């Protein structure tokens, strides 16, 4: 059965030397719906860049389907993600939630790369994801793809803790039209709409829009921070088109705009108010050639915002990123698939508020390759490697207190190699074993690299005119995350379900964190972003689920995480403790039932205690300390009634077991109840 290594290597070499066998074909973008219907399971390209069935992916991957989202008893994406074993969702406000994969969660969680149809929506200035600000409506999402562990050989910097790719319906293949209205407790009003239009036989266009406003959690807050409570409000619009230019060519275009006002918790940390405004344009061209499927994408993301915090007042922020990437995906012979890719990225923030001119940023040049080998009918091996070279730059005048010159930035280069390797063994139709390793680099954020800002210090206790200068550090090193994992999946047709187990070990080198408590002598105190040491993590996860034809569905998963820090910084100045932010035990359980037009779903999450950093005022000065979050449960539920095939009404409750849930240093999360009317037309 096993084909010889020599013959396979020869086939690959011959194929590469001769270009690629095979005549040009039709259709470039994947028709997810047709392929899912064919194979009876979700399909993806987010694991390796190669189209795959989810059960073939050589990584620990979960796909949340549109049906899962619809029945999830959630009103936003973070609550949808809460059901996934190994994901931690920390809700800091009605607007802000932070999501991490396998622990290390914190406000503005930086370790999870989030994409919308392959376009990065992760914000590089702070290295965070503003979930409420994403210009996507829940009902236009085909699936949410979650990869646990580094997948940087495909996606580059920041895909270290994990990757989430939100895949929406393709307007060329999917006719998605809906209108939804939601009202809820705490003055919640929400609406979303989408319309797909066919322009001729070869072009599909979808426009979607949504908005919501609500009252912020009214739970207790330190009086010194009460002024930062802000009722959340979001508006977003998105237009997307896909055109079949010819039998072998496709063109896709996308434009988005979104705006959000919300309260939240800063990583510095502290309760604060934020205003975000983002817009983006994206173009993609793909063509099927004798050299393979060639795909070129260019996009520009723009971010403008303000953060209002206790120390500095309203701080303006902006971020501009332009990405150009080209890849060629081709099959060589019958057993080998390869991908070659190159990427350029220009990413910068303005130097405000320290000075009014100039920008700080970096250009990244990347090259990557992937080789997938179907060694036998039941063994596949995938390898990918990527080189990223990041050149920093800074223009404009420097701040008077600046510790670094423009030359310190212009002469700084950060580079690194990422890799992923995974083998999949399927001894039977129902059993899948997976062994994988991956190494990813988390680049310092633009704030960590280049932020220079003065904040006035209170007088007293400080002398009049004293300031706190926060400095970025161009010499920061990227955090290197390496993951080793063994997984086992088992189909359970007897219960119309499946089971999954995984054990993993992860090393994190040169972690970055909040700037330390201030040093120096008045009138100028300083703090500078730094690498703070290492932390290792091991854990395992178990899960089982069933989705029966008789309408009963249930699932349960348990994840154990054990993090151990080895920090290199003074614990008195640096109160950060990653190991405490990682809950050791998390259990998710759900049960659902469908009967006639009725749908009922109940979800429970049990989490052991963990620790977070909080900021309080001592003598007028902000002082950070640890806050223990007790073990807790959170129950959510949904009852839906399908009035017709196209129209439904649902009552959704989030955190219904208690009026308030303490989950972070921010004010406690409140129970929320929503009533949603949905129609598809």
């Amino acid at each position, binding site marked *: 059965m096993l084909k010889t290594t020599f013959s396979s290597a020869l086939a690959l070499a011959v194929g590469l030397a001769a270009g690629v066998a*095979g005549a040009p074909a039709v259709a470039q973008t994947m028709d997810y719906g047709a392929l899912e219907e064919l194979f009876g399971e979700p399909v993806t390209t987010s694991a390796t860049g190669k189209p795959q069935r989810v059960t073939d992916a050589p990584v620990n991957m979960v796909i949340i389907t549109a049906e899962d989202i619809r029945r999830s008893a959630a009103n936003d994406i973070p609550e949808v993600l809460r059901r996934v074993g190994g994901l931690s969702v920390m809700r800091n406000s009605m607007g802000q939630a932070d999501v991490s994969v396998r622990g290390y969660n914190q406000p503005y969680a930086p370790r999870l790369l989030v994409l919308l149809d392959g376009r990065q929506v992760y914000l590089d200035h702070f290295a965070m994801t503003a979930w409420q600000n994403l210009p996507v409506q829940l009902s236009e999402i085909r699936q949410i793809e979650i990869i646990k562990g580094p997948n940087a050989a495909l996606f580059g910097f920041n895909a270290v803790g994990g990757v989430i790719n939100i895949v929406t319906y393709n307007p060329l293949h999917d006719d998605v039209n809906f209108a939804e209205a939601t009202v809820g407790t705490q003055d919640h009003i929400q609406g979303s709409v989408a319309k797909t239009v066919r322009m001729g036989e070869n072009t599909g266009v979808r426009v979607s829009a949504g908005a919501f406003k609500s009252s912020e959690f009214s739970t207790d807050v330190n009086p010194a921070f009460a002024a930062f409570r802000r009722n959340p409000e979001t508006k977003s619009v998105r237009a997307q088109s896909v055109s079949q230019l010819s039998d072998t060519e496709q063109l896709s275009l996308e434009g988005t705009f979104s705006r959000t006002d919300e309260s939240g918790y800063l990583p510095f940390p502290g309760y604060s108010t934020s205003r975000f405004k983002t817009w983006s344009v994206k173009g993609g061209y793909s063509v099927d050639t004798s050299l393979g499927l060639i795909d070129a994408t260019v996009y520009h993301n723009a971010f403008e915002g303000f953060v209002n915090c206790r120390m500095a007042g309203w701080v303006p922020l902006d971020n501009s990123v332009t990405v150009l990437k080209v890849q060629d995906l081709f099959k060589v012979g019958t057993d080998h698939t390869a991908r070659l890719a190159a990427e350029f990225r220009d990413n910068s923030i303005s130097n405000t508020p320290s000075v009014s001119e100039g920008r700080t940023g970096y250009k990244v040049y990347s090259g990557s390759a992937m080789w997938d080998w179907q060694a036998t009918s039941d063994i596949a091996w995938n390898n990918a490697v990527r080189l990223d070279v990041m050149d920093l730059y800074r223009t404009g005048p420097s701040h008077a207190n600046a510790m670094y010159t423009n030359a310190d930035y212009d002469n700084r280069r950060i580079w690194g190699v990422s890799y992923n390797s995974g083998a999949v063994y399927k001894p039977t139709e129902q059993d899948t074993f997976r062994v994988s390793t991956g190494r990813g680099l988390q680049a310092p954020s633009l704030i960590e690299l280049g932020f220079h800002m003065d904040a006035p210090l209170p007088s007293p206790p400080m002398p009049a005119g004293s300031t706190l200068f926060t400095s970025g550090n161009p010499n920061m090193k990227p955090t290197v995350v390496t993951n080793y994992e063994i997984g086992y999946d088992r189909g359970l047709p*007897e219960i119309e379900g499946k089971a999954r187990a995984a054990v993993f070990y992860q090393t994190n080198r040169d972690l970055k964190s909040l700037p330390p408590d201030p040093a120096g002598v008045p009138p100028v105190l300083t703090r500078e972003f730094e690498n703070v040491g290492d932390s290792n993590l091991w854990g395992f996860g178990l899960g089982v689920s069933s989705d029966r034809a008789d309408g009963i569905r249930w699932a349960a998963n348990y994840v154990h995480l054990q993090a151990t820090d080895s920090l290199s910084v003074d614990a008195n100045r640096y109160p950060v403790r990653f190991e405490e932010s990682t809950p050791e035990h998390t259990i998710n359980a759900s049960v659902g039932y469908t009967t006639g037009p009725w749908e009922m779903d109940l979800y429970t999450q049990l989490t052991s205690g963990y620790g977070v950093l909080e900021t309080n005022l001592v003598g007028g000065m902000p002082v950070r300390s640890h806050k223990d979050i007790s073990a807790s449960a959170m129950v959510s539920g949904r009852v839906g009634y399908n009035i017709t095939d196209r129209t439904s009404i649902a009552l959704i409750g989030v955190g219904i077991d208690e009026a308030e849930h303490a989950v972070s240093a921010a004010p406690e999360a409140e129970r929320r109840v929503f009533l949603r009317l949905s129609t598809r037309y």
Partner: protein
Amino acid sequence: MLRAILLASALCGAVAPAYAESSAKDVQVALRSLRFLTAKPTPPVQVAVVHAPDNAESRRDAAVLMEAMSSGKVSGTPVVARLVDVSSLDSLSGAAVAFVTAGLDAQQNAIFGAAKALGILSISTQSACAEAGHCVMAVQAEPKVRIVVNAMAAKASGIDFEPTFRMMISEI
């Protein structure tokens, strides 16, 4: 109790037979695969079910296949199915797909020769047919969808699949 025993058996690694008799679900998989041909057949898709009337196994398989297509539509694809006697392969003319029924091991080569000459996609639910190069494609719907395409047989028949599809199935 029985469910518990079945579950325990499954967890201990019991394995289902690799290929069972054809089923309606196999036909669905086969016809859904046509969407990924570079040259898609014009609907309604003309399907020839090649069988041997004097071969009981072939006859049973043909009955299952014909029944699966009897409504004139499979997974939204309009189809017109007809029986073709293995002894009169000239009748394959006009078909886009030739289903090779079970029990025709000795005649598979001849069927493939006739289908190849007419540029017809030959499909079986028996993987051995594709492995031997006597069919372009073998399909299996359960317990898990499996599609095997013989690249040489496809090339000889002038059949080409989209690259995305080729990357997701077993090519031999």
